[in-house]
C-alpha cells in the first residue's frame, strides 16, 4: 500500500478509500461528453475534520483534489484532469439546523436536493427551497457552487443568490466561515453588511476551497401549485411575453421550451408558467392577472393558453421534474448534454434558430429549455442534445454542435454556465484582462500550489 493510500485510510477508514480500478473507472467520468481521466484515489469522508486532514495531506504532497457531489453538472467539472484525489461528498449529508422563523437551513456539503426537499416536506411543510430539475441526488453545495437555478429562480435569482452563509475548508486546510456566521451564531447572510466573501468560492468549481456547510434561504411554501402553458408561434414575441409575465410578480417560475417531438409540441414555443397559492382564491386571483397580462397576445391571435390535461399537469408539477431526465434517454443509451449559457431574454429567438440550425446540420435530436432568472433579468438557455452512448459518431456530432453553441453564445453576449475547460479558456480570453488578473490573484493567494480542482479557472 502506498503512503498516500495508507494516510487516507487512516483518515477515513478502509471502507471509504479506494484506488481500485473499478472505482477509478467510475470516478474518471461524468455522464456528459468530456473524455474521462482517472483519479489516483477516491475518498468518501464523513466529517469536516477528515476533509481538513485530506486537504493537508494533499497539500504536503502536492496532490490534486477534486470535490464531487453527484457528478451531474455534465460538463466535466468533476473529472480529475490531473489525477489525484476525488473527494466524494455524499456521506456529509446531514441537515444541521432549520431556523423556521428566519427561514434558513444549514446543511452539510454533500446533502442532496432530494434529501432536503423530503425533510422539509415532512418537518416544515410551510418552507421550501429552490429545487433544480436535476436528478434528486444533485447536491446543494455543488449546485450553488455552479450558480444553479431552480423553481424559485424567477423570484429570487440564481440559487447561489439564496445562500445565507458558507463554511469552507481552504486549500491550506483551515476552516473559514463566510457571512454572518463568521461572527454570529445566526446564518442569515452570506455577506451583507460585511464584505461579501462568498464570491471567493461560488462559481470557482472547488478551485478555491471545499464547501463543508451551506446555509440556504428557505421560502414560504404555499399549499397549492398550478401550471399553465402559453404557446406562441412567434419566437420574437417571447421576450415581450416574459416582460408582461414578470411584471405581474404573480409567477413562481417560468420555463420555456421548444422541441419538434412529440407532435403536440411541434412548431411552437411553450412558456410554462408555474404559480402558487394558499387558497383557491389566491391561485385564481393570480391566474386572472397572468391571463390578463397576456390578453393582448391572445386578442392578436399571437398566442394562447393550451389545454393542459391532468397527466401533463402532474408531470410538470413534479419537483424535480423527471421528464427533463427522461429526455436524456430519447435516443436510448442515456446520453444527454446541454450547453446553457446565461444571456438576455431578448436573445431567445436567435438561440432557438441556432439550435434548430445545428440540430439539422449535425442530424441530432434537440430540445430548447430556458429558465427565466429574476424578473426577466436574464435567462439560462439550454441547447440540449440527446445521444446514444453506444454511438461514437453521434457523440462526436453532439460535441461539434456544442462547440458551435459556445462560439455563438459568446457572440450574442452570453456568459457560459458551468463551462467546460474549453469554455473556461474561451471566457478567460474574452474577459476584461483586469478581471482575469484579479481572479488569478485570488486563486494564487488561496491555492498557491494549484492543487484544487486543477485545470479549472486557470490558463494552461
Amino acid at each position: 500500500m502506498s503512503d498516500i493510500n495508507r494516510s487516507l485510510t487512516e483518515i477515513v477508514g478502509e471502507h471509504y478509500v479506494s484506488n481500485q480500478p473499478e472505482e477509478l473507472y467510475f470516478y474518471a467520468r461524468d455522464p456528459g461528453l468530456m473524455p474521462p481521466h482517472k483519479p489516483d484515489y477516491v475518498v468518501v469522508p464523513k466529517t469536516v475534520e477528515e476533509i481538513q486532514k485530506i486537504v493537508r495531506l494533499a497539500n504536503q504532497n502536492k496532490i490534486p483534489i477534486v470535490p464531487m457531489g453527484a457528478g451531474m453538472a455534465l460538463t466535466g467539472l468533476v473529472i480529475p484532469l490531473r489525477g489525484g484525489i476525488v473527494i466524494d461528498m455524499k456521506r456529509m449529508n446531514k441537515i444541521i439546523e432549520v431556523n423556521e422563523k428566519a427561514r434558513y437551513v444549514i446543511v452539510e456539503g454533500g446533502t442532496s436536493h432530494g434529501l432536503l426537499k423530503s425533510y422539509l416536506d415532512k418537518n416544515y411543510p410551510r418552507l421550501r427551497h429552490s429545487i433544480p430539475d436535476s436528478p434528486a441526488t444533485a447536491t446543494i453545495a455543488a449546485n450553488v457552487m455552479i450558480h444553479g437555478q431552480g423553481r424559485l429562480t424567477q423570484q429570487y435569482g440564481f440559487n447561489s443568490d439564496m445562500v445565507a452563509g458558507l463554511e469552507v475548508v481552504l486549500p491550506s486546510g483551515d476552516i473559514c466561515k463566510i457571512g454572518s456566521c463568521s461572527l454570529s451564531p445566526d446564518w442569515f447572510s452570506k455577506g451583507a453588511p460585511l464584505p461579501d466573501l462568498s464570491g471567493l468560492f461560488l462559481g470557482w468549481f472547488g478551485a478555491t476551497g471545499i464547501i463543508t456547510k451551506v446555509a440556504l434561504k428557505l421560502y414560504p411554501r404555499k399549499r397549492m401549485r398550478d401550471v399553465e402553458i402559453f404557446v406562441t408561434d412567434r419566437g420574437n414575441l417571447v421576450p415581450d411575453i416574459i416582460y408582461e409575465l414578470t411584471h405581474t410578480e404573480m409567477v413562481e417560475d417560468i420555463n420555456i421550451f421548444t422541441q419538434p417531438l412529440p407532435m403536440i409540441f411541434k412548431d411552437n414555443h411553450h412558456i410554462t408558467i408555474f404559480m402558487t397559492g394558499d387558497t383557491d382564491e389566491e391561485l385564481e386571483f393570480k391566474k386572472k392577472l397572468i391571463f390578463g397580462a397576456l390578453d393582448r397576445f391572445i386578442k392578436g391571435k399571437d398566442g394562447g393558453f393550451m389545454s393542459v390535461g391532468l397527466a401533463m399537469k402532474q408531470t410538470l408539477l413534479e419537483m424535480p421534474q423527471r421528464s427533463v431526465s427522461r429526455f436524456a434517454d430519447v435516443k436510448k443509451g442515456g446520453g444527454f448534454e446541454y450547453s446553457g449559457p446565461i444571456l438576455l431574454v431578448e436573445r431567445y429567438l436567435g438561440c432557438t434558430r441556432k439550435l434548430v440550425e445545428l440540430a439539422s446540420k449535425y442530424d441530432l435530436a434537440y430540445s430548447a429549455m430556458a429558465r427565466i432568472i429574476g424578473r426577466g433579468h436574464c435567462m439560462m438557455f439550454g441547447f440540449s442534445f440527446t445521444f446514444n452512448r453506444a454511438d461514437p459518431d453521434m457523440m462526436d456530432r453532439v460535441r461539434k454542435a456544442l462547440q458551435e453553441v459556445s462560439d455563438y453564445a459568446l457572440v450574442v453576449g452570453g456568459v457560459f454556465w458551468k463551462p467546460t475547460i474549453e469554455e473556461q479558456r474561451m471566457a478567460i480570453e474574452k474577459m476584461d484582462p483586469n478581471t482575469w488578473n484579479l481572479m488569478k490573484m485570488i486563486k494564487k493567494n488561496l491555492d498557491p500550489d494549484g492543487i484544487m480542482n486543477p485545470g479549472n479557472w486557470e490558463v494552461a
Partner: protein
Amino acid sequence: MNDRMLKGVRGNMTTLKFDEDLCKTCPTGACLVKCQYIDVGKDEAKEEMLKIIKGEDSIVLDDCVTCYACEEYCKRGNHPFYLITQRREDKGILTAPRAITRQWINIGEPRGKYKLGEMKEKALSFGFMAQFLELVKGRLFEDVMPSYFFGQEYFCNVVYIHFANTSIIKERLPMVIDNIKKLGVKEVVFMHDECYAAFTSLAPAFGMEVPFKSVHYFEYLYNRLQELRDEIRPVGVKVAYQRPCSSRLCPDTHHYVEDIMKLIGVDLVDRTYQGENALCCGSIFRMMYGYELAHDVQRRNIDDMVAHGAEYCVFNCHGCQDALATEIAKRGIKPIHIVDLCRMAIGEEPETEGE
C-alpha cells in the same frame, strides 16, 4: 401502414350543401336568436345570416365563439355553423391563436401509431383517445370488445371547425373514411359525439359518402342496458349532465341521456343550463379567448349544478371532464363518465369515479 392509407383519397374536393332559400324564408332566425353568446333579434339574425350566405362581412363571423349550438337550433336542416366556419376560413378570420390551431392540427396528423383490437364487423371507435381503453370495460361492452380502433388514422378531425379550418377536414376525413372502410367493419359504435357527427352530419353535409353504419354509443349503452335490465340496481343519485359542444352536431342522440338515466334509476336534475340551453365546458373558450369568457361560463355552469343539488356531474366527453372535473370536485360534486355510471348501475366498479 401503407402509403395509400396515409395519403388516402386526395382530390376529393367537397362543397358544403347549404340551402340559401331555407334561411331566406326562415320564420324564426333561431340559429342566432337562440345563441347564448351573440345577442340579436329575429330580423337582425336573418340579415346577418344572409350576409354570411353572400360572403359579406358579418358580426357573427367576428363574434361566434364556436359553441356549435346553432346546428341544433336550426330545425330546418341547414348547417349554419358549417357555413360560418367555411366563410371564416374563406376570409382568413382566425378564431383561435395561430399556435393553438397549429398545435391541434399537428396532434391530429397520422403518424402510423394507430391501434387495432381484434376487428369484427362491429367495432368501437375511440377517435384518437387511448383513455377509452380504460373506460370501455365490463359486461356493457363484452359483446363488442375487443373489437376497437383508435389513432390519428381514424380520428374524425371535426374539432377543426372550432378553428375555422374546414380544408383540413376535407383533406383528412375522406382518408379516415377510407381507412375505416379498409378495416372491413360494417357497423361502428362511436364513443365520442364528434366522431359520430363526423359521419352522420358533417360528411353528408359536405357530400362525402360513408360506407358503414354509424351508431352513437348512447344508443349502444341504452340497448345494452335493456338487455341487462334484470341486473340493474337503481343508482339513486342526483346528477347534472354536462352536454358537450359536439352533441349539438347530433342533437337527435341527446334524448338518450334522459332515457339512460331513467333506466338506471338516476335523477337528472332539472337545471337551467341543460338541453338546448347547455353551456360549454369552457376549455375551447379558454384556449381561444383567454380567461373571462371561459371563467364566466364555467362559474355559471357549476353554480347551476350546485344550486340544483347535483351530487354527480355526468360527462360524455373527456375534454369536458378534464376542463371541469377539478372545479366541480372542489364544489362537492363528483365527476363521473356516463359509462362508469352505467357500470355502477350493473354493480361494476367504475374506473374514474371521483377522480
